[in-house]
C-alpha cells in the first residue's frame, strides 16, 4: 500500500491556512457531547488536553505518574526554537523550515515541517502569556541562544530548565481546565490497549496502578501523546517509566509504526560508570555554545586533562566541521565521539568519554557568567560524576535520547486508524532521521496547542458522539486479553527479574542497533531477540499480585513490549540500506565517514503493519517529495 500523508496541495506557505479554512468545525454547543481520551501529559498531551478542554470538549487525561506535572518533557534542559528573529540575525519561518528539513537528513515530510516552523512563534507568545519565565536581558526583552544545526540564535530558554517551565505552563493550563470541569485527570493509570470498533478508535483499556483494576474508557477520539521508546536501549536519558507500550499496543491493533530505526543518540551525556547504572543523564546541548569538545591527539594518553598541552589536543569537531564547530548536529557529533573513542583516544574510565572544556569560556566571560548560564548543569554534573567542571573539563559520551520514529500519522496527525491521533515524540512526522536541538519542545507544543484543536474537529464533525459503551464486546474482549497477559506474567515464577531481561536486551540493542549498524550485526540481533523473548516468557519472575500496586508487574509488561518492539526496530534498520541522520549503516558511508543517503531507493517513510505474532510485518511506503528544499548532501563543513 502507498501511504498518503494527505498533505494539502499548493504552495507551502499557504497550505495550513487553506486547510484550516476547508476543515469542518464542531459547533460550540456540540463540543461537550464529544469525549476525547488523551494519553500522556507531557508537552504534547498536557497542551492538547488543556486546549481541547478550553474549546469545550470532554477530555480524559491519563498518565502513569502521580501528577500530570511529572511527565518527562520536564527534563528537557536547553530550550525551544522559534523563528522570531528577535536578534535580527537572518532567521525566518523559511529558514527554520530549511534547517529542520536538512537537520533531519531529508527524511521528514515538508508540509508538516513548514507548518511547525509557522506556528513556532505563536508558541513563544502563548508561553510568555502563561507566565513562563524565559531568560531576559536587562531591558526586559527575551534572550536567545544558539543550538546545534543552526547558524542563527533562535532558541528561547529558562535557565537549564526550559522543559520544566514549559511543562509547568501547560500543566497550569490543564489545571485550569480541571477546575472548569472540562478535563478529568486519571493519575497512576497505564494504557494497556486501544479499543477499535468498526475500524475506528473508540476508547482505551487502562490499568489503575494503585488497585490493579482494569478500566474501560470510551472516547470519540483517542490522542496518544506517550513519548518515545529509547528505553529499548535500557540505558537512556528517558525517565525510568518511559515505555513503548501504548504505541506498541496501538500498532498491534493496526496502527502503522513509522521509521522505528530512527533514534537519536545525544552527544553530551555523562558517561556510564558501572553495571548497576539505571539511567544516563543528559548535559544540555546548550553547553556546546561555550564548551569545546576535545580528546588527546595521542592514543591511550592517560595524563590528566590539565597536563595535556594545547598542541596535543584534538578539537575534532572544530577541525572537521569548521562552519558549525562544536555546534554540529547531534547525529554527527555523536558519531564523531564514537570514532575518536574507537581510535583509543577516549578519556575517563574505560576510554568511553570525550572532554567538554569550559576553560576558554571561563577566561573570556568570567566564572560568574558561566555559572549564570549553566550553573544547575554544572551542579548536576558534580553530584553524579563527583568532579568540578569549573576546574576540569566535563567528561561526556553519547547516549540514547529521542525517538524520531513513531506511529505513522498524516498531515492531520491522524494515524491510519480513524479517530486515533498521535502527537509529539510518539508520532514520526517532523524530524526525519535526526532531530535538531530545541525542536522537540517546539513540536510537542505545536501539536498540542495549535494543530490537534483544528484537525480533531475535522474528524469529529463526521462522527456521531457517544455511540459505543463500555459494555461493547470489543471492550470486554480487550479487558480479557489484558487480564490474560497479566496473569501469565504473574504465573511464570521463573528465576530472572524483568530488569535483568531489560538490561540484556538493552545491551544487544546498543551494540547492534545503536550508533553504528551493520547487516551482520542486525541479522544476528534479529536471531537473538526472539530467543531472549522466549526465555522471558518462561523464566521471568514477577512477584506480588494483580490487585495491588505492583511495580514489578508494571515493569514486566513494559519489558515484554520492548522485547517485541526491538525486533521491529532492528528489522527496519536492516531494511533501510542507506545511512541517514541517526541511522548509520557502516556499509553505506562516504569516503570521509559521513552518512551516505540513497535517495533513489529510500526516499520514503517506512510504515510497518502488524501481521500477527510470529509473522513478519508488512512494509508500506509513503514517498517523500522535496519540492522546496532540493535534496542535497548534508554538509556542516
Amino acid at each position, binding site marked *: 500500500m502507498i501511504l498518503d500523508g494527505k498533505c494539502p496541495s499548493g504552495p507551502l506557505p499557504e497550505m495550513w491556512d487553506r486547510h484550516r479554512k476547508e476543515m469542518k468545525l464542531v459547533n460550540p454547543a456540540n463540543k461537550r457531547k464529544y469525549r476525547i481520551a488523551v494519553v500522556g501529559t507531557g508537552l504534547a498531551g498536557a497542551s492538547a488536553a488543556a486546549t481541547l478542554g478550553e474549546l469545550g470538549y470532554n477530555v480524559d487525561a491519563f498518565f502513569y505518574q*502521580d501528577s500530570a506535572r511529572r511527565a518527562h518533557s520536564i527534563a528537557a534542559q536547553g530550550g525551544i526554537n522559534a523563528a522570531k528573529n528577535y536578534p535580527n540575525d537572518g532567521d525566518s519561518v523559511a529558514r527554520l523550515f530549511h534547517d529542520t528539513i536538512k537537520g533531519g537528513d531529508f527524511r521528514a515530510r515538508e508540509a508538516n515541517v513548514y507548518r511547525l516552523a509557522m506556528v513556532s512563534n505563536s508558541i513563544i507568545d502563548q508561553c510568555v502569556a502563561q*507566565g513562563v519565565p524565559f531568560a531576559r536581558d536587562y*531591558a526586559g526583552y527575551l534572550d536567545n541562544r544558539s543550538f546545534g544545526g543552526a547558524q542563527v540564535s533562535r532558541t528561547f530558554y529558562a535557565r537549564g530548565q526550559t522543559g520544566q*517551565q514549559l511543562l509547568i505552563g501547560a500543566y497550569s493550563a490543564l489545571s485550569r481546565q480541571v477546575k472548569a470541569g472540562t478535563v478529568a485527570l486519571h493519575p497512576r493509570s497505564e494504557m494497556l490497549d486501544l479499543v477499535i470498533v468498526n475500524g475506528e478508535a473508540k476508547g482505551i483499556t487502562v490499568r489503575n496502578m494503585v488497585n490493579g483494576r482494569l478500566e474501560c474508557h470510551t472516547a470519540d477520539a483517542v490522542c496518544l501523546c506517550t513519548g518515545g521508546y529509547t528505553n529499548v536501549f535500557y540505558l537512556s536519558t528517558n525517565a525510568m517509566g518511559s515505555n513503548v507500550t501504548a504505541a506498541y499496543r496501538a500498532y498491534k491493533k493496526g496502527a502503522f509504526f513509522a521509521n522505528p530505526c530512527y533514534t537519536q543518540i545525544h552527544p553530551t551525556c555523562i558517561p556510564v*560508570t558501572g553495571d548497576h547504572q539505571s539511567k544516563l543523564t543528559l548535559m544540555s546541548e546548550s553547553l556546546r555554545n561555550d564548551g569545546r569538545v576535545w580528546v588527546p591527539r595521542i592514543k591511550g594518553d592517560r595524563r590528566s586533562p590539565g597536563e595535556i598541552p594545547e598542541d596535543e589536543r584534538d578539537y575534532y569537531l572544530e577541525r572537521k566541521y569548521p562552519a558549525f564547530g562544536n555546534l554540529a548536529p547531534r547525529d554527527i557529533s555523536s558519531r564523531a565521539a564514537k570514532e575518536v573513542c574507537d581510535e583509543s583516544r577516549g578519556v575517563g574510565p574505560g576510554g568511553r568519554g570525550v572532554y567538554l572544556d569550559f576553560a576558554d569560556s571561563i577566561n573570556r566571560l568570567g566564572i560568574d557568567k558561566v555559572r549564570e548560564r549553566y550553573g544547575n548543569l554544572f551542579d548536576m554534573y558534580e553530584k553524579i560524576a563527583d568532579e568540578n567542571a569549573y576546574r576540569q573539563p566535563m567528561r561526556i559520551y553519547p547516549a540514547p535520547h529521542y525517538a524520531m520514529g513513531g506511529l505513522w500519522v498524516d498531515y492531520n496527525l491522524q494515524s491510519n486508524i480513524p479517530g486515533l491521533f498521535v502527537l509529539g515524540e510518539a508520532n514520526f512526522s517532523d524530524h526525519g532521521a535526526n532531530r535538531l536541538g530545541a525542536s522537540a519542545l517546539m513540536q510537542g507544543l505545536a501539536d498540542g496547542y495549535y494543530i490537534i484543536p483544528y484537525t480533531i474537529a475535522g474528524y469529529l464533525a463526521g462522527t456521531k458522539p457517544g455511540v459505543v459503551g463500555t459494555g461493547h464486546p470489543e471492550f470486554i474482549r480487550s479487558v480479557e486479553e489484558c487480564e490474560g497477559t497479566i496473569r501469565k506474567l504473574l504465573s511464570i515464577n521463573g528465576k530472572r527479574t524483568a*530488569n535483568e531481561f531489560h538490561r540484556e536486551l538493552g545491551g544487544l540493542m546498543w551494540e547492534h542497533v545503536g550508533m553504528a549498524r551493520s547487516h551482520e550485526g542486525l541479522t544476528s540481533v534479529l536471531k537473538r531477540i526472539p530467543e531472549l523473548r522466549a526465555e522471558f516468557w518462561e523464566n521471568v*519472575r514477577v512477584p506480588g499480585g494483580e490487585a495491588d*500496586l505492583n511495580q514489578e508487574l508494571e515493569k514486566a509488561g513494559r519489558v515484554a513490549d520492548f522485547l517485541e518492539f526491538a525486533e521491529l526496530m532492528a528489522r527496519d534498520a536492516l531494511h533501510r540500506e542507506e545511512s541517514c541522520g541517526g541511522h548509520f549503516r557502516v556499509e553505506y558511508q562516504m569516503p570521509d565517514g559521513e552518512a551516505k543517503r540513497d535517495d533513489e531507493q529510500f526516499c520514503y517513510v517506512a510504515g510497518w503493519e502488524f501481521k500477527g505474532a510470529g509473522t513478519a510485518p508488512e512494509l508500506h511506503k509513503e514517498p517523500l517529495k522535496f519540492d522546496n528544499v532540493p535534496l542535497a548532501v548534508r554538509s556542516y563543513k
Partner: protein
Amino acid sequence: MDLTLYVWRQSGPGAKGRLEEIEARGITADMSFLEMLDVVNEGLIKTGREPIAFDHDCREGICGMCSQVINGVPHGPQEKTTVCQLHMRRFKDGDRIYIEPWRARAFPVIKDLIVDRSALDRIVQAGGYVSVHTGGVPDANAVLVPKADADTAMDAAECIGCGACVAACPNGSAMLFTAAKVAHLAALPQGRAEAARRVCMMTEAMLKEGFGSCSNHYECQAACPKGIKVKFIAKLNREFIKAQFSKKSE
C-alpha cells in the same frame, strides 16, 4: 560497602506499617541511592520477598516524583539534592539507614514509601495559573519584564512539586509550595491581574486539604532540593494581606 536499612513497609492505605530491617550488600560509592534500592529489590525478588515500593521516574532531580525521608531528613543528607541524585559516596560501610515515606496528614501512604500527593495538584487547580486561553495573546516581546523580576519569577518557578517542604515541616504545612507558585506569577506582569484572587483561592485550597500553617521553622527551605527560599512565604503573606484590601474586585 555493606549497609543495614530500616525501611518503612506498609501494604496499603489502611494497613499498619512498620520498619523492616533489610541488609544491603556490595553497594558501591558511584551508585545513586535509588540504584542502591534497585540492587536491594533485585535481591528481595530473588529470595521470594516483596520488593520495596517507591516513587521515582526521571532520576535526574527534576520530575519531583522521588520522595523518601532518609535518616529523618526529606531527600537525605545532601543539600539541594533529590533522593535520585543522592549518591552512595555520601555513606560509609556499616551505616544504618532509616528510610521512610513523606509523613503529613495531607499525604496518606499508598504503599511502603509511596504517598498520595494529589492535594498539591488541587492547590494549583484552585488558581495556580494565568487564565489565558490558547491563542489571542500579544507578541512575546510586547510586554517587557525587567530582568530582576524575571529572575525572581524563575527562582520561585524552580519548584518541582515534590512535597519535601511539607514532609519537613513540623506542622505539615504546604506554605513553601503554595508561596512559590504565588510568587512566581505575582512577579510577572502577565500574572499580576489575577494576583489577589489567586492568593486567596490557593490559600483556601491549602487549608481545605488539611495542610498545617506556617510558624516560621524554615525546615522547608532546608529540605527543598531546589533551594526555594522562605522569603517567598513572606511574599505570599504580603500578597494575601494586600488581597484583603482589594476585595472590591470580587
